[in-house]
């Protein structure tokens, strides 16, 4: 049970036992509460006072399935508020096995200096000179790191976009094959890492010192029950392994909620060509994999490996949100192009969602035509090259809108929304508007409630309460290190009960949480408190104007909630 503090200004590393007020916290709970305590809210996100915190989930490093997520937190340069972005792959598990609860990167390296932070199999950290890796793209970078430091290392790294401190820069994580294709994409945390002068975090996978489980018997028993529930659920046990997240393209289009052509339409004309079903048909004969284990400890395998006509690797994993941002939003109905764009974003180190939406805003402004595949690829390349337009796109969709004087930018608190239009899945609009994270679906996605027929996506009843509850539960999920795909399948009261038992068996009676909801509530309160101190007011908890004014075909509805109604979200 320890924290590692790495100071980039004076190149010192200190270890400390986890202070009492942080014991029992993990993942997002730890990063958010620590940022609220330690980071000056008004600080420059790219300056020395910001902190970049890596924290594995509470259950990461245990034997429980699907718990290899690591949360990364900081003050976001994109939103100006608190940010947590989590990523799967192998890092969460590696840190958990070493008994490291958080790595806190502080200060800022002198201009132009670049370092790796390396952690060995005993959990000892050291800085390594990384000057030779300057400007390197992530695929080449991880290959070199594996060659020089050994294949059995988990990596979180940045590409040229992070080094250039672009606000859409991601932190890329290595998957089970060692490829940098898992992304903590949102909020521009790659820019924070770049500003600190940290090119990569490299952690040995051979740790043998995980934090103890307080009640191993109950933990084992309840873990077994959870595994059974996950395997038997039609979504996690059947659909995800067959299609992955792209399976969402069909239902969301069919319900008229797939924001297309920069959110001018709710159904994308070419969606049948970019759906999960289409991907399976294209990839089958080529030898691509629709089922792939992206993360350690995973029994679901929602990841995929997308290959070209010659069977050559293009990218992994091509996810629903990327298909939307790089496909529906840009009018590109060609999966091979979308796959190439996904690879390019991972390689340069940018968020596929904010980048795709930025491209869509540029196209909507007449800079290029919707559907122009070559133009989209060139625009992403321009970020890496640092051209005049690349520098604008690299700062996110709001910067693009400002440049072209186009107010139709689907972003909240500076961050683009996700693949569910708030005019036809109105509860997701409440989440986008109110989550402290800025436009974000993982904070509280209601699509399951719509498809599960718990709520009508177009009627106001129950939306605020449901968004609030899911925001609480997801904050808790992000804290335990469980992948959201699987966590979402645990939606019956019985499954939640077993999950709570596992968590408390790990923590022990003194730290046991009463319920997942209250854990989530505590986290959200800390996040809102930070944003408030950073200068956010309730006027920031609003959607862009056009969502209230422009009806979205085919339902021709607008976002129906008033400001007062939106503020009710915080009646807790």
């Amino acid at each position, binding site marked *: 049970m320890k924290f590692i503090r790495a100071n980039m200004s004076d190149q010192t590393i200190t270890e400390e036992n986890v202070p009492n007020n942080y014991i029992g916290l993990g993942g997002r709970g730890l990063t958010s509460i620590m940022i609220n305590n330690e980071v000056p809210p008004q600080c420059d996100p790219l300056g020395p006072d910001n902190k970049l915190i890596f924290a594995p989930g509470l259950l990461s490093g245990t034997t429980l399935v699907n718990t290899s997520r690591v949360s990364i937190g900081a003050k976001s340069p994109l939103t100006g508020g608190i940010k947590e972005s989590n990523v799967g792959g192998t890092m969460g598990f590696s840190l958990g096995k070493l008994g490291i609860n958080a790595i806190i990167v502080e200060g800022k390296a002198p201009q132009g200096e670049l370092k790796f932070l390396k952690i060995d199999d005993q959990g000892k950290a050291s800085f390594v000179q990384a000057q030779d890796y300057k400007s390197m793209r992530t695929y080449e970078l991880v290959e070199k790191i594996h060659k020089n430091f050994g294949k059995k290392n988990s990596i979180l790294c940045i590409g040229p976009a992070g080094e250039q401190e672009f606000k859409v820069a991601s932190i890329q994580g290595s998957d089970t094959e060692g490829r940098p294709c898992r992304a903590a994409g949102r909020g521009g945390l790659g820019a924070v890492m770049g500003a600190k002068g940290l090119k990569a975090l490299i952690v040995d996978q051979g740790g043998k010192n995980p934090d103890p489980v307080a009640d191993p018997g109950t933990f084992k028993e309840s873990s077994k029950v959870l595994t059974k529930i996950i395997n038997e659920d*039609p*979504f996690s046990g*059947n*659909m995800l392994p*067959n*299609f992955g*997240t792209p*399976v*969402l393209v*069909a*239902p969301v289009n*069919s*319900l*008229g909620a797939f924001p297309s052509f920069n959110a001018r339409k709710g*159904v994308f004309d070419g969606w*049948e060509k970019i*759906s*999960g*079903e289409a991907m399976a*048909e294209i990839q089958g004969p080529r030898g691509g994999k629709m089922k792939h284990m992206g993360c350690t400890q995973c029994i679901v395998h929602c990841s995929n490996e997308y290959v070209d006509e010659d069977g050559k690797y293009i990218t992994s994993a091509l*996810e*629903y*949100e990327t298909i939307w941002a790089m496909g529906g939003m840009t009018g590109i109905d060609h999966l091979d192009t979308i796959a190439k764009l996904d690879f390019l974003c991972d390689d340069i180190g940018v968020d596929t969602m904010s980048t795709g939406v930025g491209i869509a805003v540029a196209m909507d402004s007449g800079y290029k035509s919707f559907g122009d595949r070559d133009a989209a690829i060139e625009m992403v390349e321009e970020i890496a090259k640092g051209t005049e337009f690349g520098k604008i796109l690299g700062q996110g969709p709001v910067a693009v809108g400002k440049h072209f004087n186009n107010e139709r930018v689907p972003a909240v608190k500076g961050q683009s929304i996700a*693949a569910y239009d708030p005019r036809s899945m109105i509860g997701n609009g409440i989440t986008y508007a109110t989550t402290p994270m800025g436009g974000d*679906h*993982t904070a509280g*996605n209601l*699509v*399951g409630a*719509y*498809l*599960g*027929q718990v709520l*009508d*996506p177009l009627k106001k009843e129950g939306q605020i309460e449901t968004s609030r509850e899911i925001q609480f539960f997801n904050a808790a999920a992000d804290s335990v290190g469980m992948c*959201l*795909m699987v966590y*979402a*399948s645990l*939606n019956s009261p019985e499954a939640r009960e077993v999950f709570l038992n596992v968590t408390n068996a790990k923590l022990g009676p003194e730290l046991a949480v009463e319920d997942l909801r209250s854990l989530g509530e505590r986290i959200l309160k800390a996040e809102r408190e930070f944003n408030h101190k950073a200068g956010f007011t309730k006027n920031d908890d609003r959607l862009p104007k056009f969502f209230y004014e422009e009806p979205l075909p*085919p*339902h021709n509805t607008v976002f129906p909630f008033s400001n007062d109604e939106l503020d009710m979200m915080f009646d807790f």
Partner: protein
Amino acid sequence: MKVTVRLYGTLRKRFSGYRAEQGLEIFIPDEATARDLLDHLKIMESLGPVVAMEGRIMKPDDKIDQGADIRIFQTVHGG
């Protein structure tokens, strides 16, 4: 009455020879409901089916319109 049904997710595998472009053309009684349609197609509850007509999710007792374009997915929890 005749309706066209398009299937998504793993449901397609249950109908050999299913062609995505055409979907399934089937005859069901007038006044048939979403539940009747699922029974007709032998799509069990355990598969988590969701029936949609004209961009709206149907409740089990909702009636299907003549000549409607129907889509059936499976419950999805989020991406």
